[in-house]
């Protein structure tokens, strides 16, 4: 009797382990397959010419430099607009707001905003910034529309980061006669900084990879934007158009690979910052 139970136990254990392993392999496998597919198809394209020169000819041969510049520009501008607002909002929500209905409502609104499909955000940006405010197709219109998309994401990750700072560390500061703002600015925010930075960089990756929002707000024109009022075509948009029209698939794969590498780099930097800061503190 007892031995049969034991067999069953180890059997269920083995099955559970197998299922968990299968799930893990599926997850890693999916990522691996995509990466491999993009690498195999795109690696041949990646040359200095491809990265640093302009496209030419009807089939868009040559490089994709203007789209890289446009992508980096709009991402940087969007982060510059979003990060300060989002961090201050998160500090308010986590530290200052009286926890109650109002805060719950704000949080619910932020979550809802985060789940708005990005194509809707693109249309909204088109009607508000591009047409309504007369910004035309421009980097600034795209950055502002992206800000709407990123704001709730950064607010939530920052709020989580602030809340994760242990209460007793704050108490230590209050116990020394620190005011609330001194405690927040000198203890809480520095302690939360690695996690905040991670959240911001991951959001930057999201911005760089966004297609629907930018296609309606900065257009599809191949252009290396200098002023925020210039239009431009970002890498995801470039990729979409090339793939859609089938004019230059190899180049599309090249763009795809570069884009994936860029977002991957964002994620790795985020991880690195998180780790380095933990070490310094630990």
């Amino acid at each position: 009797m007892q031995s049969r139970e034991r067999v069953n136990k180890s059997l269920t254990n083995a099955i559970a382990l197998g299922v968990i392993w299968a799930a893990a392999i599926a997850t890693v496998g999916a990522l691996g397959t995509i990466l491999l597919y993009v690498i195999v198809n795109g690696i041949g394209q990646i040359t200095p010419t491809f990265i640093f020169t302009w496209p030419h000819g009807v089939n868009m041969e040559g490089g994709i430099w203007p789209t890289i510049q446009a992508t980096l520009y709009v991402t940087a501008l969007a982060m510059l607009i979003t990060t300060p607002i989002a961090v201050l909002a998160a500090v308010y929500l986590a530290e200052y707001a009286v926890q109650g209905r109002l805060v719950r409502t704000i949080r619910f609104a932020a979550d809802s905003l985060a789940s708005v499909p990005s194509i809707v955000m693109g249309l909204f940006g088109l009607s508000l910034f591009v047409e309504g405010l007369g910004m035309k197709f421009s980097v600034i219109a795209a950055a502002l529309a992206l800000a709407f998309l990123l704001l709730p994401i950064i607010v939530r990750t920052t709020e989580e980061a602030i809340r994760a700072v242990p209460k007793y560390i704050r108490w230590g500061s209050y116990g020394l006669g620190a005011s609330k703002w001194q405690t927040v600015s000198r203890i809480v925010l520095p302690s939360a900084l690695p996690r905040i930075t991670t959240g911001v960089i991951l959001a930057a990756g999201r911005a760089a990879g966004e297609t629907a929002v930018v296609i309606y707000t900065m257009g599809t024109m191949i252009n290396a934007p200098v002023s925020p009022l210039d239009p431009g075509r970002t890498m995801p948009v470039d990729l979409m158009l090339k793939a859609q029209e089938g004019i230059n698939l190899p180049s599309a794969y090249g763009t795809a690979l570069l884009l994936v590498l860029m977002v991957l780099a964002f994620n790795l930097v985020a991880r690195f910052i998180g780790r380095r800061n933990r070490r310094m503190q630990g």
Partner: protein
Amino acid sequence: MSERLASLLQDQASVGTGRDKFEVQHLNFFYGDFNALTDITVGIAEHAVTAFIGPSGCGKSTFLRCLNRMNDLIPGTRVEGKILLDGHEIYGPGVDPVDLRRRVGMIFQQPNPFPMSIYENVAYGPKLHGVKKKAELDGIVEESLKRANLWKEVKDILGRGGLTLSGGQQQRLCIARVLAVEPDVLLMDEPCSAIDPTSVQKVEDLMAELKDRITIVIVTHNMQQAARVSDFTAFFLQEVAGQPAELIEFERTAALFTSPKDRRTEDYITGRFG
């Protein structure tokens, strides 16, 4: 034999300055509607060590946090009655709890160094209160670490993170950090319950050294510790769950442990409950 005689003689001698640092009068404390502490009246002697003992949930830590208004940070709490510090009402109008907490420092159960260097941990308080000169800060950091008996162990690694120290060292770092703002009073909320025995010894020695200049109040779970380190002991008890806790007995430590007046104190210190 001579040791016992010495301790008896010491007990006869007057303790501290003979003056009360805190006078607590008819204090009631509420968490929302719940009356957690009722009618506490007690005086806390200046430059002496006063211990609060009692079973878990008896309100001793709550009472401790009333003394520097740390409870203000918990929403929905309320105080009735009076607490006078050097004759001034600390819950009175115009009293800034931030200033109060500078004078009444606090050490917590869990050592809580800030995630910054040892030096910066100690310099944090003085910097808050406006000390900017490097030389002055250096002096305060060294002096505070010396007073906390940590200087020898850390003088060559001041730039290292405070969290790299052992638990006991961390607790002494927290003590140094509080001493750096020169408080009159040090509140210690079970300061030894999360550190190793050797460090406990060091912290206890430290309390004996510090009380020349500072009034110390310690909450402890450990009756032996209360008996070792304190001059006065207060016994708190919540007799019925859901009812407020009260101060059962307050006496010279030697008297409370050798001849408790209240039956409940006797039951507690002889280990009949708690």
